[in-house]
């Protein structure tokens, strides 16, 4: 057998799961879709002493509209459910655009929306998407609840603000204003392979065609998804010209990212990709916002 021995708990309610996590402390780990945790355990890179399996808790899997026109997505909602949900497509077209790039259908049938965010892979798409969509994350532990902005959730590669006895329970996506457009652009060696670099943008125009908001996040080019300050600073308050977009791309590629070199790409090549992808992503997002 591949993984080391561990204790296994299969709670059927959130309360029960939180009770286990509270008892186990550093010895315990949440098992969501297992599509990242089980490979790591098969390699014995992860050696948790006990798993608290959330798969038997139906109350953690849902996609619900919120009062303000946004959506609340339960942490155990499978990636494929998010990918094919008409509710999601209507309100957040960025998500069905992104989802097919995450692994393969067989993995998206099991992997979960919240699990991917909690996993905090710097090359993962959903941590970045949670930031670009301004998500609010509901975090539970026995007897208490707190909310964390996606922007403040990620601390480093595979590191988040979650404490061992805590669990990510829900991802709330606030409604997007009218005249908002979004776009996801990535370059990877294979579809369903992690990207060498990727960019997601969400931009809003006013009636006169001036930019009122520009959120842009870059993936695989730092320890965490990187929210561009240049996009906001340069674009907001003016009409999005190709020159302004090129300026954002230049600043983003040269100053805002910290790419590494690995077997897939050099740091220099990643900077080049970011320059190109920022331009494509922002241009497309603005075109969509103007429609």
């Amino acid at each position, binding site marked *: *057998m*591949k*993984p*080391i*021995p*561990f*204790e*296994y708990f*299969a709670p059927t309610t959130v309360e029960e799961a939180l009770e286990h996590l509270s008892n186990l402390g550093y010895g315990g780990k949440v098992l969501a879709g*297992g*599509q990242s945790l*089980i*490979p790591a*355990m*098969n*390699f014995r890179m992860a050696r948790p002493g006990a*798993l608290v*399996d959330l*798969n038997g808790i139906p109350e953690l899997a849902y996609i619900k509209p919120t009062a303000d026109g946004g959506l609340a997505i339960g942490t155990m909602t499978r990636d*494929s459910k998010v990918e094919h949900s008409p509710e999601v497509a209507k309100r957040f077209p960025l998500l069905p655009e992104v989802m*097919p790039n995450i*692994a*393969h*259908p*067989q*993995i998206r*049938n*099991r992997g979960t929306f919240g699990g991917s965010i909690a996993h905090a892979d710097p090359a993962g798409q959903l941590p970045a998407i949670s930031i670009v969509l301004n998500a609010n994350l509901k975090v539970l532990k026995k007897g208490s609840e707190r909310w964390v902005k996606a922007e403040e959730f990620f601390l480093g590669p595979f590191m988040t603000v979650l404490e061992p006895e805590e669990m990510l329970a829900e991802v709330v996506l606030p409604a997007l204003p009218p005249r908002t457009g979004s776009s996801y652009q990535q370059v990877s060696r*294979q*579809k*369903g392979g992690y990207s060498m670099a990727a960019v997601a943008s969400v931009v809003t125009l006013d009636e006169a065609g001036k930019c009122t908001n520009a959120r842009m996040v870059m993936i695989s080019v730092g320890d965490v998804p990187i929210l561009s300050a240049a996009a906001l600073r340069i674009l907001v308050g003016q009409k999005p010209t190709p020159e302004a977009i090129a300026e954002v791309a230049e600043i983003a590629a040269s100053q805002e990212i910290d790419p590494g070199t690995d077997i897939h790409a050099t740091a220099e090549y990643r900077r080049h990709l970011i320059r190109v992808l920022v331009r494509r992503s922002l241009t497309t997002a603005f075109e969509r916002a103007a429609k």
Partner: protein
Amino acid sequence: MTTHTIKVKVNGVEYVREVEPRLLLSDFLRHDLGLTGTHVGCEHGICGACTILFDGEPMRSCLIFAVQANGHEVTTVEALGTPEKMHPLQEAFQEKHALQCGYCTPGFLMTLKPFLETHPNPTDEEIREAIDGNLCRCTGYEHIIEAVKLAAQKMATRS
């Protein structure tokens, strides 16, 4: 290590077994139930050889623990057809030479069965997407794509 009793329906048959939590579903199927049609290649989700249907949906059996199958339904390639009465997909794979060593084949078949049920008339592009998560080291994929198209025709004429 504590073991757990699981009750799982595999290919329509209910099994009750004692398992260690760390036993992968792929190993449970092969070693405990003797259903060796499910193949194991990479054991980290990349190759697709271990693809089975879990409650009707294709998933990696190397990335699910057997204990998690408690109360669920699993379908393996053994349920697809028999040598006498093959599934149209199996016939088409044979007729179009869509396999050589056959190591990857069960994973392809279990990926494609639900795909053809929802895409009765797939385009080449859709087929390529559908098999994106399955690696074959022998065929070069072109024969597999031909086989999927033939299987779709066979299924359409039979229904």
